[in-house]
């Protein structure tokens, strides 16, 4: 059958000072298909999409949209031509309502002066019902969950008449349930004849949702395959250029003494509300406790409370018998707590510092590195060279500024620094967020090595597969509380997902160790509430 090509990019090349971001890339997207573009960070996916959308000008190459050549177009031209982009970081104004956000820039007006609020609301409602995007047009963005914010973004793009939608890493911030709902919406959009370009690095999603896949590596296309005829392993190999372990090998845990004991811990947020409520946790030496949860349910505050970065209001944190509740961060670090922070750019590194200086962060005051107030520069560089070699941080240059490393290498830097110096408790928060498959493999292996060496590990991740692969025990956080706790391997992703969204939250004691073959926890919890 004659297939119409919606987007045709040929020989697209884009050079940056230190990087060839796109090297003669060809992309062909058929009308009405869901086309996934996958690749590691820095593979050139985002640059390619920015070129298509007109935000970045290519050095070479041609673009055709529905058969018509596009030359030197801008993002606003793209919108007129029916291209719409849902960015990874939503472009919404928090205090505005959904309807106000959707019509922003092309508001329906009365007499050209006043915004016609009713017309805006009606149009938003029509669009959202048409594609099953349940959304209240009058709700303020700040009151919406991330999943709903994303819907508002999609409606915004549809309102602008897009028939080709580009979604940049749309599932990164969603719960499993929200991902399922998003896929329903995307399929409905495909039914309506729209074309969807879907950027991701999650291989299972590609297989599940996409029709065809373009794989990129180092700025080039390494393959175009039909999603039905490929496997995650094959895609991973195309992405990385070598065989990758998608699941790391792990041995039975050898449990030792309790290292971290959190007891009845509560903390208040900025608005004076409880962000942590009576949290109880215990991690033994040689054990990984995984905390699953939708972001913003107290995981950040839990980690910060343990590490002395967030004041607690009641309860206690004990490290190998020593009370560390509300100690200063430095004192807690010096007692052997290492912390891979959830946001590496916000906390994990000082981008303007050199790699060597970054590798010293938090150790810089210790004997050997600091003597009578002076930094031992020779020692600092030696330390950096050792860690760079041990952890294969690239480029292997201690003097380069950390901002010039890729996300994966920045993460390796943080892991190298935090794992150094024999910690007794290792807190790893979102340790693989935004890093590519090769680095994920490395981080996971490193965490398991530490655990096998007798370190107690607290793993916080929004990535359920990560929690499930690594954890010896899994706790689920919702609304600042631990709502369920399971032995590793006794719970399914779906079940965890239900607890993460509060479906299993009875408001009482956490559910513990429900075996898989039991009734679904959703029902059990519903019973509890009744």
């Amino acid at each position, binding site marked *: 059958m004659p297939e119409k090509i919606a987007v045709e990019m040929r020989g697209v090349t884009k050079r940056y000072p230190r990087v060839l971001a796109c090297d003669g890339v060809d992309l062909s997207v058929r009308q009405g298909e869901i086309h996934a573009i996958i690749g590691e960070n820095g593979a050139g996916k985002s640059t390619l999409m920015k070129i298509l959308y007109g935000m970045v000008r290519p050095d070479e190459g041609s673009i055709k949209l529905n058969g018509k050549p596009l030359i030197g177009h801008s993002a606003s031209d793209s919108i007129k031509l029916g291209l719409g982009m849902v960015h990874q970081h939503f472009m919404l104004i928090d205090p505005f309502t959904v309807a106000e956000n959707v019509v922003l820039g092309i508001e329906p007006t009365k007499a050209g002066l006043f915004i016609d609020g009713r017309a805006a609301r009606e149009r938003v409602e029509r669009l959202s019902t048409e594609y099953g995007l349940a959304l209240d047009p009058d709700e303020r963005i700040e009151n919406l969950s991330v999943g709903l914010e994303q819907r508002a973004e999609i409606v915004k793009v549809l309102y602008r008449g897009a028939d080709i939608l580009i979604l940049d890493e749309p599932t990164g911030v969603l719960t499993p349930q929200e991902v399922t709902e998003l896929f329903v919406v995307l399929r409905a959009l495909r039914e309506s004849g729209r074309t969807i370009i879907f950027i991701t690095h999650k291989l299972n999603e590609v297989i599940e949702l996409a029709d065809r896949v373009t794989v990129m590596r180092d700025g080039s296309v390494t393959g175009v395959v039909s999603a039905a005829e490929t496997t995650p392993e094959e895609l991973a190999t195309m992405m990385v250029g070598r065989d990758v372990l998608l699941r790391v090998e792990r041995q039975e845990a050898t449990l030792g003494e309790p290292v971290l004991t959190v007891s009845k811990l509560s903390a208040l947020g900025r608005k004076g509300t409880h962000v942590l409520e009576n949290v109880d946790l215990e991690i033994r030496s040689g054990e990984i406790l995984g905390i699953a949860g939708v972001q913003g349910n107290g995981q950040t505050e839990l980690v910060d409370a343990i590490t002395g970065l967030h004041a607690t209001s009641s309860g206690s944190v004990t490290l190998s018998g020593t009370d560390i509740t509300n100690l200063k961060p430095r004192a807690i670090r010096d007692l052997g707590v290492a912390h891979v*922070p959830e946001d590496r750019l*916000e906390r994990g590194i000082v981008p303007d510092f050199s790699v060597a200086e970054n590798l010293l962060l938090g150790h810089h005051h210790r004997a050997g590195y600091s003597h009578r107030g002076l930094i031992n520069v020779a020692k600092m560089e030696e330390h950096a060279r050792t860690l760079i070699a041990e952890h294969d941080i690239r480029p292997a240059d201690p003097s380069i500024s950390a901002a010039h490393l890729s996300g994966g290498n920045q993460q390796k830097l943080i892991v190298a620094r935090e794992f150094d110096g024999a910690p007794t408790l290792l807190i790893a928060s979102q340790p693989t967020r935004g890093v590519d498959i090769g680095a994920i493999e490395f981080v996971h292996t490193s965490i398991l090595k530490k655990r096998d060496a007798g370190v107690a590990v607290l793993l916080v991740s929004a990535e359920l597969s990560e929690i499930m692969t690594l954890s010896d025990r899994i706790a689920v956080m919702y609304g600042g509380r631990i709502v369920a706790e399971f032995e590793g391997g006794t719970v399914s992703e779906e079940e965890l997902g239900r607890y993460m969204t509060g479906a299993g939250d009875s408001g009482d004691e956490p559910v513990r160790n429900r075996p898989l073959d039991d009734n679904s926890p959703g029902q059990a919890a519903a019973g509890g509430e009744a």
Partner: protein
Amino acid sequence: MSPPGALGTITRARKSDGAGKLVSLLSPLVAVLAAFLVGGLVVAAIGESPLRFYSVLFRGAFGSVDGIGLVLFNATPLIFAGLAVAFAFRSGLFNIGGEGQLYIGSFVCAWAALKMPGAPAVLLIPVLILASAAGGALWAAIPGYLKARFGVHEVINTIMMNFIAVALTGYLVVEIFKEPGQMTPQTAVIPVAGELPRLAGFFQSIAVPLPNANPLNASFLIALVAVWLAWFILYRTTLGYEIRAVGHNTSAAEYAGINVRRTLVMAMLLSGAFAGLVATNEIMGFRHRFLDNFSSGIGFMGIAVALLGRNSPLGVLFAALLFGVLNTGALEVDIFTDVPRELILVVQAVTIILVVVGNEIVRRRLAGGAQKRRPSKEGLEAS
């Protein structure tokens, strides 16, 4: 969600890395040249010959050993004031209170000197240098503490501290410490043992004919030491490491166990100390007494010096020298041309603006050019 600014930081850093050090060296030079070009247009617009204007200006600055000595003398207080701003900037604080800090430093210096009439030079000179620094440090520590303890913005407090310092020293020098029997609001002359030697004698001894009347004094050497000291503190001490960590990324510093509040106060303290050292030139080296309202904005010029010098100690040195050239040359222009005094100030200010703006433009241009010149694949591993 990670902050949307995060990616921006990386791209920005990448760009500035373009041709690296070369760009950061070249751009101020090209910018200064461009500034003189446009400054010439301003001169032409007021009906004077740009060529004559600049030839007189440069003759004033470079035409004689005396001129060069004056350039260094004029640059000296600006080096201290620039270092003060640059140093605080490294901790993320905008210290625009240099003016107030240098007034207090100068007053404390003069006061201490007058309190120690019989002290020998070997004792008095170090004490006065420390007193100058301590006065400035104390004055800067107040807004520093308010910032660290209560999060009050340092800009508003340093401005207020400027008003207080100028008014307070004015009051003290008029009402309490005025030189007996004089109408001028100034203190008595400090003991000779507290004076910093002029450099004319030294230069003459190595056959450089710097006239005896030239005010260049040993404070310039202290300024050079201060440039080195600022660099050393920032890049070789644990405190400097912590200051820079706090300045570049406060939450990372906090996460690393750095006491952010203490670090901020320390940074302001040291920043104020640099500002206070202006007294070594103004009081110990030149006036030999405290005069009400003597500074006329040295502290504020320090902001421009620091920004032009990209907040690096060495950059501050060069930026201060440029200002020294302009100030010195302007005197000559005033004497030898018909350009009105006010317009010299205008051209001077326009030149500074153009240097700052031009520096930014040239830097971007050069960085952009570097993009085209280096389409190599080497960065791929890095990304």
